[in-house]
């Protein structure tokens, strides 16, 4: 006997289902059921991973959608949540899958329209050529509701309507053994409970109805959770969806019977229904009737099982048609309505011709580019490379792919938007010829095989960087070229994190709001499944009341619920970069819904899209590109010079000098503390060095094995060592050290004689731990056969094994090196314009105020906010001496909105404050902010230094008050008055001027920038008294010296670190430059809270010197600087000393992280180490190569709310760049 569940909701039924598709599949397989269905509400987002999971588990996959029948708007969803009638629609065969996709798309598009109902189904059915859909009319359907209401006449009429659509219909029976209200009006607690649709009695009546109407019946269990205990999660989800606390009235379910029951359990249900129906059903005795019910169910199930490849189309590649790429199809034809059938079927002969044409077009374009770019047509190397690549592309049939990307890039560039490809695609010569990649791979010795080989028939991955500010324009261009029928964006599912899980679970349980808030905010942004561990391990949580409750076990049930919601999708969102390009079959293969900005969005995420074989182009908005575009515009505007940034040669010595100076704040890729340290030691001299520098900055055991030997050889401390003379050509560029994937490929090829393409396959296998033994078993004999000594083979193997997963792709680094060089070039030669760009678009990790200070340190005049000279963005402006400086932007002003900005820019110039007031509609608070930040200083002659005579900012504020009062009186009283109105000129009121600290305070508050003076300047007396070492003096310190540093916090980072403990890197700005310090785990505990929550810090640490430019500080304590100053002012140095001696109480935890890699798998494994007690142990992530990482690395540190006095969030906190 067998049974197949046909009605199952997963977590992709948002806030309705409690388990993932994977869990469902595993459970069905464990029950030995031959197949299982996924029928999510309104969505196919889970379908692809479901089908893949079924394939892996060896059971059949059935896919359907649970759809609402009534008009469906956003308001409806909340208000009518309970009242919506629904049906389940199952797909049969390829046509059924296409039909489901289109049906789901139609549902989302027609959301606002009325009468969606059966018309949708009838149109869909006409579109389906082979296979089709089956509709299940269950207790939730309109027919079911009529039967429940004892109106068989209505039920019959509705059924007739359904049958008129021509779709296959069955009646669905469900029994959760709910209480029939006729039997008991209230539940066991005495509470009145609504009768529910899933009672056995109703199921029996529906069976009778179906028999009378001669419609087949099937049995399902309307599953929402896999285990019975999942009912709690389901209840929480219902409460969350309805935005109400849990209460019996709000439950959707009447009991917990809606789980994935086993086959015997379902048989029992079948028998109960049969018995309740009496012996009259189909004329069978009840046992036989039950058997008949199950048989019909299984018969339908077997017809609905989908073949992943033949029906769903996993792995099928569909590229846009050549005619579309070449612009030969009209706009109307490109934008057909969703429901008009497209002639999508193309004969294989037609496809073959098109492929040949595409190859020809691609070759023609490449040849033309060779000439245009000045390559010599007779250069054998060029010729051979081009022919090789074109042959590979032709063999794979990917010419259209390259032409597609080529035309996209060309369209974007023609619109004047900066664009460049990133990734391994830079290694492809064809990409360079098509202007997709700026780098010439021949010049930099990059390999095509790393990007594309005939051995992998998967679409290569090309990512395109565009200016962030114009990214949507780029999207529009793609839609214009290919049409809405062939383009869609990609979605992503936002899942629960601890904070959301706590808020939702807490609200559902009716816990007090402010308690929930505190609880939620204490956590960093981590996965909900890590909540318990975070409470135990993170020092800043363990000490709190919540941490202690968790340790005492009184939060267990709450935490179980919170962890249960983890991994569940919260809502579907637009992926910020992914774009799908396809031929006309797109909407037959993926469901589409609308998204923010009205871009049609596939319900599949980026992994599903890859599984399906769809062409996905990532169009990334890069702020540095916008910053550089702005800089170029400013250069043209202020000096008339036109800079063609993509044409500048890569050999400017001054640029490399700047890079070597490590004063690279604002530059792409090389501004982080780690990178500045590396660049300081490395001293790059040319473009190739930049490529190497970017590649060296990797996580893993590489620091000691890669960076140190390389730097030593490079600086001449040791001779480069080569593993073998035959490897010298490949490793020469990096002094014998293996750095690049391309080098690994070459090494394998040299030592074993395989082709580069085969070598790349081997390299990929080396990245997964379980494949390594197989590769080893092949490598040794192959190398030995070539005559290499065992010693060499072993040495090479060790290196290959370690570096395969940690090397870096040189092509990727080369693509990145271009904007790195370009940004450094701009900073060198057009410093003011560079800063204007960086300040406007904020591309880097540091807060704007630090960048502004860097500009100051470069000697660029900083020109304050000026109502007549400031623009929306930061721009270059000349000061009184005619020097190029940076003018503060109006958009920085707190509260400034687009409308006001517009009116200000339109109204230039303004003669006075009252002129401004009259002619713009700027709200009063914004005007006050403008005054406070000094925007009207120039207009009214307010001087930079506080003065006793003359107008000052406080006078101007009062003037604003006057103007405002007059304006409102004018509005209120529309009659003649003897008042002549406010003075046009502000009066001197005698109020004292704002002193410099008040000005800076106001600037920070209004602009987030300390423009007139650096914030730390006010602390100079204290810093001098304490003997704090300033950034400019760091190079004078000695190793092991204990020093104090202080400043404004500009960044905290928690990158992955080899030993598995969490390290926090801190960067302070002390007005003379940045200072970096590292907090290792033993130092963090008592200070973690101050570290994350304070803005001005005083830090004690010991110095570590490494070379003439290398200084690093290991921190041993940190204190709030503002508090220290208060103590100092009150009680002198003694009071400060006392303050610093107070070590916050801390429960010491010195569990050593031992490398206990208990299980080695191909993905990092979480391991508990360090002690017998569960509570005392720590967790470590172990990578396949043995690299150990703290699970809390790569997470955003806590403390997003500002606790101590910083106006707003003025620093950067992140996982940081990997590699230190």
């Amino acid at each position, binding site marked *: 006997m067998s049974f197949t569940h046909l009605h199952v909701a997963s977590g992709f039924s948002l806030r309705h289902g409690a388990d993932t598709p994977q869990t469902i599949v595993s459970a069905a397989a464990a029950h030995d059921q031959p197949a299982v269905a996924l029928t999510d509400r309104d969505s196919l987002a889970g379908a692809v991973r479901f089908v893949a999971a079924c394939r892996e588990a060896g059971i059949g996959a059935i896919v359907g959608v649970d759809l609402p029948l009534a008009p469906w708007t956003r308001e409806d969803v909340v208000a009518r949540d309970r009242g919506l009638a629904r049906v389940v629609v199952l797909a049969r065969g390829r046509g059924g899958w296409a039909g489901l996709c289109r049906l789901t798309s139609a549902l989302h598009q027609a959301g606002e329209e009325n009468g969606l109902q059966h018309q949708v189904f009838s149109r869909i059915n006409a579109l389906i050529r082979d296979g089709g859909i089956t509709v299940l009319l269950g207790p939730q359907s309109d027919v079911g509701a009529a039967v429940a209401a004892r109106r068989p006449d209505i039920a019959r009429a509705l059924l007739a309507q359904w049958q008129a659509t021509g779709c296959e219909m069955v009646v669905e029976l469900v029994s*959760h*053994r*709910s*209480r*029939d209200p006729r*039997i*008991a009006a209230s*539940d*066991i*607690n*005495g509470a009145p*409970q609504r009768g529910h649709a899933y*009672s*056995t009695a109703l199921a029996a009546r529906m069976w009778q109805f179906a028999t009378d109407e001669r419609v087949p019946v099937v049995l399902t269990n309307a599953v929402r959770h896999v285990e*019975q*205990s999942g*009912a*709690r999660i389901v*209840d929480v989800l219902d409460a969350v969806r309805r935005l109400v606390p*849990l209460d*019996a009235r709000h*439950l959707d*379910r*009447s*009991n*917990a*019977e809606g789980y994935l029951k086993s086959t015997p359990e379902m048989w029992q249900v079948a028998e109960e229904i049969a018995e309740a129906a009496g012996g009259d059903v189909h004329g069978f005795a009840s046992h036989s009737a039950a058997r008949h019910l199950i048989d019909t169910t299984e018969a339908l199930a077997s017809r609905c099982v989908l073949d992943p490849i033949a029906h769903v189309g996993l792995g099928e590649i569909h590229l846009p048609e050549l005619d579309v790429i070449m612009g030969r199809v009209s706009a109307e034809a490109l934008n057909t309505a969703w429901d008009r059938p497209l002639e999508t079927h193309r004969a294989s002969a037609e496809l073959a011709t098109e492929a040949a044409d595409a190859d020809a077009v691609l070759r023609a374009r490449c040849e033309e580019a060779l000439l245009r770019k000045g390559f010599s047509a007779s250069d054998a190397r060029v010729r051979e490379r081009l022919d090789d690549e074109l042959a590979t592309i032709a063999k794979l049939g990917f010419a259209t792919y390259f032409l597609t990307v080529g035309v996209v890039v060309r369209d974007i560039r023609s619109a004047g938007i900066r664009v460049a490809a990133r990734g391994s695609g830079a290694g492809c010569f064809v990409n360079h010829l098509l202007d997709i990649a700026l780098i010439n791979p021949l010049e930099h010795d990059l390999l095509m095989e790393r990007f594309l080989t005939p051995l992998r028939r998967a679409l290569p991955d090309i990512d395109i960087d565009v200016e962030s500010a114009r990214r949507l324009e780029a999207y529009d261009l793609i839609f214009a070229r290919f049409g809405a029928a062939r383009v869609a964006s990609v979605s992503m599912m936002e899942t629960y994190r601890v904070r959301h899980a706590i808020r939702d679970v807490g609200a*559902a*349980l*009716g*816990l007090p709001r402010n308690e929930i808030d505190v609880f939620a905010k204490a956590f960093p942004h981590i996965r909900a499944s890590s909540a318990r561990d975070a409470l135990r391990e993170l020092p800043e949580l363990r000490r709190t009341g919540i941490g202690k*409750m968790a340790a*005492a*076990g*009184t*939060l267990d*049930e*709450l935490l179980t*619920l919170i962890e249960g919601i983890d991994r569940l999708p919260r809502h579907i969102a637009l992926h910020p970069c992914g774009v799908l390009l396809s031929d006309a079959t797109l909407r037959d293969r993926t469901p589409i819904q609308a998204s923010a900005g009205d871009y049609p969005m596939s319900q599949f995420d980026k992994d599903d899209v890859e599984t399906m074989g769809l062409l996905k182009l990532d169009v990334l908005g890069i702020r540095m590109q916008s910053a550089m575009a702005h800089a170029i515009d400013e250069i043209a505007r202020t000096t008339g010079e036109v800079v063609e940034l993509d044409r500048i040669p890569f050999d400017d010595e001054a640029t490399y000098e700047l890079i070597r100076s490590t004063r690279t704040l604002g530059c792409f890729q090389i501004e982080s503390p780690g990178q500045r340290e590396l660049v300081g030691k490395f001293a790059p001299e040319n473009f190739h060095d930049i490529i190497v520098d970017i590649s060296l900055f990797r996580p893993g055991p590489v620091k000691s094995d890669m960076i140190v030997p390389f730097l030593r050889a490079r600086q001449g401390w040791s001779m480069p060592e080569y593993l073998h003379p035959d490897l010298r050509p490949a490793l020469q560029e990096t002094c014998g050290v293996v750095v690049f994937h391309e080098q690994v490929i070459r090494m394998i090829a040299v030592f074993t004689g395989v082709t580069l393409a085969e070598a790349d396959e081997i390299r990929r296998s080396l990245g997964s731990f379980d494949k390594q033994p197989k590769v080893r078993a092949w490598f040794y004999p192959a190398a030995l056969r070539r005559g290499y000594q065992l010693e060499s083979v072993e040495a090479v193997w060790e290196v290959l094994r370690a570096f395969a997963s940690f090397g870096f792709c040189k092509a990727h680094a080369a693509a990145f090196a271009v904007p790195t060089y370009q940004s450094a070039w701009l900073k060198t030669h057009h410093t003011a314009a560079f800063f204007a760009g960086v300040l406007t678009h904020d591309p880097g990790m540091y807060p704007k105020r630090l960048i502004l200070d860097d500009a100051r340190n470069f000697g660029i005049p900083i020109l304050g906010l000026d109502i007549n000279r400031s623009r929306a963005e930061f721009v270059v402006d000349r000061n009184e001496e005619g020097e190029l400086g940076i003018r503060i932007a109006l958009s920085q002003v707190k509260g400034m909105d687009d409308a006001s900005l517009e009116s200000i820019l339109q109204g230039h110039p303004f003669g006075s404050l009252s002129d401004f007031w009259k002619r713009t509609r700027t709200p009063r608070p914004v005007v006050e902010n403008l005054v406070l930040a000094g925007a009207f200083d120039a207009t009214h002659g307010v001087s930079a230094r506080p003065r006793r005579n003359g107008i000052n900012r406080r006078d101007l504020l009062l003037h604003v008050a006057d103007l405002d009062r007059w304006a409102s009186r004018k509005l209120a009283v529309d009659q003649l008055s003897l008042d002549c109105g406010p003075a046009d000129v502000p009066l001197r009121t005698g109020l004292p001027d704002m002193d410099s600290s008040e000005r800076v305070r106001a600037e920070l508050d209004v602009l987030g920038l300390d423009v007139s003076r650096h914030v730390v300047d006010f602390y100079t007396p204290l810093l001098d008294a304490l003997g704090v070492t300033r950034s400019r003096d760091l190079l004078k310190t000695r190793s092991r010296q204990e020093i104090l540093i202080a400043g404004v916090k500009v960044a905290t980072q928690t990158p992955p670190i080899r030993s598995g403990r969490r390290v926090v890197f801190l960067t302070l700005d002390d007005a003379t430059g940045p200072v970096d310090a590292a907090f290792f785990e033993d130092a963090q505990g008592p200070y973690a809270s101050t570290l994350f929550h304070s803005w001005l810090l005083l830090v004690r640490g010991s110095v570590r010197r490494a070379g003439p430019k290398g200084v690093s500080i290991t921190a041993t304590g940190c204190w709030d600087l503002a508090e220290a100053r208060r103590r100092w002012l009150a009680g002198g140095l003694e009071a400060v000393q006392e303050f610093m001696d107070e070590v916050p109480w801390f429960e010491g935890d010195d569990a050593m992280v031992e490398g206990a890699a208990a299980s080695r798998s191909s993905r990092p494994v979480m391991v508990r180490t360090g002690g017998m007690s569960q509570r005392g142990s720590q967790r470590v992530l172990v990578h396949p190569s043995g690299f150990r990482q703290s699970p809390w690395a790569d997470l955003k540190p806590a403390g997003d709310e500002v606790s101590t006095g910083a106006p707003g969030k003025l620093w950067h906190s992140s996982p940081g760049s990997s590699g230190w």
Partner: protein
Amino acid sequence: MTKRPPGEITVTAVNGVPTRLRWRERSYLVEQVLSHWVESGAWWQIVARRVGTATADHIPLSCTVWRVEARGTRGSMVVDLAHDAEADTWSLVRLAD
């Protein structure tokens, strides 16, 4: 659970179906199962109460209720018996003569 007829009840069940019960020191034989269904418990009330304290109270997620006709020496009655599967306890919910 509130509003229950008083007294401990012991139930013998075969395959989950009650066959005998003992209440107020009298034995009854289950003659007929009139119907049965499954009900939900308000499990969340306990979780909310339990945050920060340690209480041993338990509200079941699910209860199966059996409406049976039971006959004893003094005649027969119709009772609702509730079974908490997680804790494996029986209670008498309702009584109708």
